[in-house]
């Protein structure tokens, strides 16, 4: 059988094993994580999508019926709505999720849509799973209140602390809305319900009994359905034992697009990383609630030389979470945790230390084709978005330890190509270049998969091409390549320099040598001069593929494809930690 016929047969047989999807509604309504119900926003999105796609496919004449402006859409029955428009100030309601106002709840009820919101227990369950990311909670029977309010007590699957979900029937309809939640082990004294808040919001309270005393405080805005989709968050330390310990934090947050939201304070289970309890307080965004300026990277004590930063994968719902942790470079023990990020959309894509080692910069993927650059203080865990306009949709980053310049690879349309942007420590854009090149009139698709500063003017780039990889040097002044390793086609070469590329303390750039033939030597970490010639092999034998690499002085630290963090210690390869996905020294 010819190769072509064989390929056709295999592909068609494989495709036939994929059952046809359900209806379009089923697909749109299905939530990531196997959640049982689609929140109203998803239903509205489906309706908007239904209307939008068809309208966009209509003729130009037809399109003239649709004006620009706020989301013009229709509900599932075709009734016109403007569901995505933010409510006016006087319409700010009591509800946290899935409705904020009685009018919104009534509109939904009028559609007659089959939903869980007619049952308080199921509304609470959907809230816990969708809004808080709690995995399969156990719920007590509903405790009725005044006829239009109710409480449902939840515990994590298998037992644990109680969280009481407070519900109310807003408006005149019979659908239920969550108006708050409380757990006795996380008490918030400020802000109080319906308080106006501006960035940074001062959060005061106390907690007990959480794992290692950790509590995460989030600022959420209406319409954001996922735990990871917040405006800002901060980890605080309360009590780890049975006694409450006070905490106080100033949480900076990005500019909200809605008038209302919530403060969510929660802890996570040490078993699987999922939320195990939460207190949720409804707040409104006050005047002056502008985007939270990033905390000045440079406050607090710097990371000591004996520590590195690692991104660790922890189990949780679906793909789990990424935790940004400080690790002792000598023995791999975790010193403290700086941030926890839901990994379902990619989690933490890259990480780097600021020039003064007082902050850790990291790229967080927030959704498909959407990411943000964040900075977290090493000293106090203050964590916020670096809102430089030049740095939209970042994917990779590198900080020059000498000048503090920041180089960021961006990708705004998820095609693997984007731009290389360099900004000064103050955020001034110094240069911007597309990361693809042209040859014979056709784009040679390339994406920057790793980057590191060789000196204040030169970046080492690890480029992923369709047909292989290349390690090149890029001069940020002339925007021209100035050297680097050869481009390698792994399919043709027995040995290839591979990603990641990085630089040691002297600025000599290094890459990974891997071999493609059976029986070939295992991976090596090599240093390369500017002409592309191999200088030496600080790690001549590196068991396992290398997916991340960084240096502390002249000592390389790397992560294998099996998630093992390794270094050379006393001439031997030493394992430091497991379940690691990235490292920065």
């Amino acid at each position, binding site marked *: *059988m010819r*190769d072509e016929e*064989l*390929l*056709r047969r*295999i*592909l068609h*047989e*494989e*495709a036939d094993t*994929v*059952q*046809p*999807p359900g*209806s*379009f509604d089923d*697909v*749109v309504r*299905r939530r990531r994580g196997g959640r049982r119900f689609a929140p109203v926003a998803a239903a509205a*999105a489906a309706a908007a*999508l239904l*209307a*939008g*796609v*068809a*309208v*966009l*496919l209509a*003729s*130009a004449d*037809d399109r003239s*019926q*649709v*004006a620009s402006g706020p989301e*013009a*859409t*229709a509900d599932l029955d*075709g009734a*016109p709505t*403007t569901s995505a428009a933010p409510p006016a100030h006087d319409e700010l309601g009591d509800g946290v999720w899935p409705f904020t106002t009685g009018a919104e709840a009534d509109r939904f009820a009028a559609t007659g849509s089959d939903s869980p919101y007619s049952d308080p227990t199921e509304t609470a369950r959907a809230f816990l799973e969708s809004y808080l990311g709690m995995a399969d909670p156990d719920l007590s029977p509903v405790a009725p209140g005044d006829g239009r309010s109710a409480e449902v007590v939840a515990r994590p699957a298998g037992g644990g602390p109680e969280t009481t979900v407070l519900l109310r029937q807003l408006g005149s309809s019979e659908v239920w809305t969550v108006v708050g939640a409380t757990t006795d082990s996380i008490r918030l004294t400020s802000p109080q319900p319906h308080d106006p808040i501006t960035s940074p919001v001062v959060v005061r309270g106390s907690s007990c009994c959480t794992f290692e005393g950790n509590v995460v405080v989030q600022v959420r805005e209406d319409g954001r359905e996922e735990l990871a989709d917040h405006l800002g968050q901060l980890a605080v330390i309360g009590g780890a034992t049975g006694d409450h310990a006070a905490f106080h934090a100033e949480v900076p947050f990005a500019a909200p697009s809605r008038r209302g939201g919530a403060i969510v304070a929660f802890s996570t289970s040490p078993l699987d990383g999922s939320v195990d309890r939460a207190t949720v307080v409804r707040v409104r965004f006050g005047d002056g609630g502008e985007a939270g300026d990033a905390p000045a990277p440079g406050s607090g004590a710097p990371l000591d030389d004996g520590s590195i930063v690692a991104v660790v994968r922890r189990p949780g719902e679906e793909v789990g979470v990424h935790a940004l942790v400080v690790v002792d470079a000598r023995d791999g023990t975790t010193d403290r945790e700086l941030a926890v990020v839901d990994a379902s*959309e990619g989690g933490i*894509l890259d990480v780097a230390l600021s020039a003064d080692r007082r902050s850790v910069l990291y790229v967080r993927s927030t959704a498909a*084709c959407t990411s943000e650059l964040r900075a977290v203080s090493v000293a106090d865990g203050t964590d916020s978005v670096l809102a430089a306009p030049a740095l939209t949709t970042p994917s990779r980053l590198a900080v020059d330890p000498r000048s503090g310049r920041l180089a960021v690879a961006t990708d705004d349309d*998820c*095609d*693997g190509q984007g731009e290389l942007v360099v900004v000064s420590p103050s955020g001034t854009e110094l240069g911007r270049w597309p990361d693809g090149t042209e040859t014979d*009139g*056709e784009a040679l*698709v390339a*994406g920057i998969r790793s980057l590191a500063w060789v000196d204040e003017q030169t970046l080492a780039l690890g480029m992923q091409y*369709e047909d292989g990889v290349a390690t090149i040097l890029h001069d940020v002044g002339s925007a021209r390549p100035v050297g680097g390793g050869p481009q390698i086609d*792994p*399919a043709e070469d027995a040995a290839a320099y591979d990603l990641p590329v990085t630089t040691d303390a002297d600025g000599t750039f290094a890459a990974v040598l*891997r071999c*493609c033939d*059976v029986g070939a030597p295992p991976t090596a970490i090599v240093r390369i001069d500017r002409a592309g010639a191999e200088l030496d092999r600080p790690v001549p034998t590196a068991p396992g*593929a290398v*997916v991340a690499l960084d240096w502390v002085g002249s000592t390389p630290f790397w992560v294998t*494809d099996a998630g093992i963090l390794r270094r050379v210690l006393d001439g031997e390869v030493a394992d430091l930690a497991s379940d690691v*996905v990235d490292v920065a020294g």
Partner: protein
Amino acid sequence: MMAVVSSEASHDALSDLEALYRDHGTELVRLAALALGDRRAAEDVVQDVFTRLHRGGLRLDDASRVPAYLRSAVLNGCRSRQRRTGAGDRARLRLARERPAGADVEGSAIDASVRAEVMAAIRALPARQRDCILLRYYLDLSEAEIAATLRIGVGTVKSSTARARRSLAPVLEGVR
């Protein structure tokens, strides 16, 4: 003044979309599943494509371009997802160290383990090569149609397909 879609238009829109999804939904999900090896992820990709299609304000005056657009968007979505998760890199790294095992062909169906091995090799290809293989041998598109879908030249389709077949040859040889 804010304009809204009229009720009548919305019903038409609903019908149009249902037709669009009915015509292409299965093909798109299967295409994504072939690329990713994960049906759930494939459905996510297709869902994201339709959502972006709405939010992005796509203008398609020629209905005949819709299938090509959808296929292109789904393949881009697969590439994005692999990039986000690093799945492509991991698969490629694995393939660099693992040689394909032998395979048996019984009756009219190819052994599932062999099929899985070939699919793993296809998924480990560079994205453009993988896309060319899927469009050529699963959807039976012509080189010109593939070029239009991927927005690349016909020459690039030829070279990418040839490179992919060369990479896959050892695996396919093991199947025979």
